[in-house]
C-alpha cells in the first residue's frame, strides 16, 4: 500500500545524509509518494560542482566510504529517477547561499517554502535527519 513520506534533511554529516537517502530511495521505489525538504548544512551537497565531502560523524560514516556503499547523492538521484520522489530545496537556504535553481543539481526541484512543506507533511510519515 502506498503512503506519503515526508523527509526533512538538514544535517551535513554523512550518516544522516546516507540514511535519509536510503529512506527516500527505498520508500520511493516501493510506490510511496516521497518528498524531501533540504535545508541548513545539507544544502551544499546539492549544488552543481560541489566538491565538499560530507564528514563522518562516527565509525560507520568512515566505513560507508571505505566499503563502497552507494553514495547518498546517487541514491537521491535514484529516488527521483526510479521512484518519482521530489526533492525541494528550502527557499530560505537557497536565498542565504545566494543560489538560483540553475546552481542546483538537475534532479532537485524548484525551491519550496516551509509553509507548503508543512502543509504537504500534514499527512503520512514524517522523518527528520
Amino acid at each position, binding site marked *: 500500500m502506498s503512503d506519503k513520506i515526508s523527509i526533512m534533511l538538514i544535517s551535513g554529516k554523512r550518516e544522516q545524509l546516507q540514511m535519509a537517502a*536510503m529512506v527516500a*530511495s*527505498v520508500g520511493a*521505489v*516501493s*510506490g510511496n509518494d516521497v518528498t524531501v525538504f533540504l535545508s541548513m548544512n545539507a544544502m551544499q551537497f546539492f549544488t552543481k560542482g560541489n566538491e565538499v565531502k560530507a564528514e563522518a560523524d562516527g565509525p560507520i560514516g568512515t566505513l*560507508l566510504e571505505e*566499503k*563502497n*556503499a*552507494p553514495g547518498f547523492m546517487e*541514491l537521491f538521484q*535514484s529516488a527521483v529517477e*526510479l521512484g518519482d520522489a521530489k526533492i525541494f530545496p528550502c527557499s530560505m537556504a537557497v536565498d542565504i547561499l545566494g543560489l538560483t535553481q540553475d546552481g542546483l543539481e538537475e534532479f532537485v526541484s524548484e525551491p519550496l517554502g516551509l509553509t507548503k512543506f508543512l502543509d504537504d507533511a500534514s499527512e503520512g510519515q514524517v522523518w527528520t535527519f
Partner: protein
Amino acid sequence: MAERKIVDAKNTFCPGPLMELIANMKQAEVGDELVVLSTDEGSANDIPEWINKVGHEVLETSEEDGVWSIVVKKTK
C-alpha cells in the same frame, strides 16, 4: 523461455543491489527474468520483500560462497 539478465551488484551495500535491480527492471519486458547477484546479506533479505510488496515474483534464492543469487520475474 524468457531471457535471464544478470544484474551483477556484488561488493556494494544496501540499498545498492535493490536500486540496480530496479533500474534494470524498468528496462525489462513483462515476463523477463532477472538474476541479481549480491554479496550483501541484508539486500538478499530485502530484495524479496520489495518484490513481494510491488507484486513481481521471486522464483529462486540461493547462496554460494557468500554470493546471493535472487531470480525475479517481472510480472507487470
